[in-house]
């Protein structure tokens, strides 16, 4: 159990992540906080893919725009942008597994110091070893850069950034960057590199809610937007 810090909002986490995606990128956003990233990319040169089989997804559909044949991977009615194209599920995952997604942003239950993460099964919650894997395992191994967007700790105070994951894995060694409400942490060869902390917090605060020993970047700074 760690202490409780407030940190930044989910919206600002999404903004911080949006700033991490270079112009000219193709990106896929998972369910939850990751979905919010596209609220911050208007005017940016980023193309979003959705696993269901579409490139250049537009904002959520409103009112009369809703089309039952046009949803995203979270089953929300969406719109299309100029340059959109549709394709099959097999093509969608050929693209994902083939390494064409420059950035994927996913949620997680736990992340380890080695870049392992878990997001589909908390033991005891579902019968046997089952759960909603969906496209998470393919995105994890396929994306060139995998960003995990999570609250730094569970609501109950339990740690989520651990030496070793204790839940069933989504992928091993796949995570590149962890963005939380408290910090921005790079998964480096040597371990977790603390690069940014939320306003008002110190690296020691972050360490107090993080199991692995953090490497404090010499350039460590406040999270910038």
């Amino acid at each position, binding site marked *: 159990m760690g202490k409780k810090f407030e940190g930044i909002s989910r919206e600002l986490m999404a903004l911080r992540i949006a700033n991490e995606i270079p112009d000219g990128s193709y990106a896929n956003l998972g369910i939850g906080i990751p979905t919010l990233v596209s609220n911050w990319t208007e005017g940016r040169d980023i193309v979003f893919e959705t696993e*269901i089989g579409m490139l250049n997804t537009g904002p959520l559909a409103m009112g009369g725009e809703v089309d039952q*044949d046009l949803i995203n991977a979270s089953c*929300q009615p969406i719109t299309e942008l100029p340059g959109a194209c*549709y394709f099959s*599920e*097999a093509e969608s995952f050929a693209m994902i*597994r083939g390494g064409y997604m420059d950035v994927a942003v996913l949620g997680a239950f736990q992340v380890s110091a080695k870049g392992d993460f878990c997001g589909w099964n908390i033991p005891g919650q579902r019968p046997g*070893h*089952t759960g909603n894997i969906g496209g998470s395992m*393919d995105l994890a191994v396929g994306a060139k850069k995998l960003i995990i967007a999570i609250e730094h700790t569970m609501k109950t105070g339990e740690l989520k950034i651990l030496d070793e994951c204790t839940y069933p894995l989504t992928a091993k060694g796949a995570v590149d960057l962890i963005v939380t409400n408290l910090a921005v942490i790079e998964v480096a060869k040597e371990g977790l590199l603390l690069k940014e902390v939320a306003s008002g917090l110190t690296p020691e605060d972050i360490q107090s809610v993080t199991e692995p020993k953090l490497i404090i970047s010499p350039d460590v700074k406040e999270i910038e937007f």
Partner: protein
Amino acid sequence: MDKEYPDINKAIEDVFDGASIALGGFFSCGNPVYLTTALSKLDVKNLIIIAMTMGIGNWELNELLRNRQIKKAICNYPFFRSVSRRSIFEEQLRAGEIECELTPMGTFIERLRAGGAGIPAFYTPTGVGTLIAQNKEVRLCDGKEYLLEKAIKPDFAFIHAYKADRTGNIVFRKTARNYNPEMAKAAKVTIAEVENIVEPGELNQEMIHLPGIYVQRLVKVDRPQIEATIEKPPEK
């Protein structure tokens, strides 16, 4: 070749006990709603159902579960998102009344693609080091680990399409394409419910999403009215 069947029940009458059936559709989008409902009225049991979800968005599938027609599910997103909600499938799984073969979404559709393409097995990076790798062969290629995954070749595929010509050439609409084409290719017999059936030559030959060679039977249906949600089944 005119592949249209005037009667949906006639089009599925050879589905047999123990048959494996792939059902197209991603959550609420592009599901063979009419064929699934017709199947639920058929006296067949011990089915192996291959579909993304198990009654989450594709609500018609719950009727198959209620009737206890399904022996085994091959799927990638079987449950409600919220762990506090239990689907019929989850209850049956907890009771040990049904089997579940969970396969990641990309592996799921690639196994079907392989089934249609005469590829019995392939290697994939997805799932290495996870529970999905249990009892699977691991192979090193250029120093990286991959899992051996096997093709799925269902007895039947039920798909939903926007347009078809009578010879079975098919056009889907927007994201309602999803799993439908590869399921059709993988299956021995593909039955398509189609919103519009036209004469050969009326479809643009450059935008056939599923060549007619893969489709054995067509059934004309009305455009269904669907709410895009996985939270609640439609009220009756």
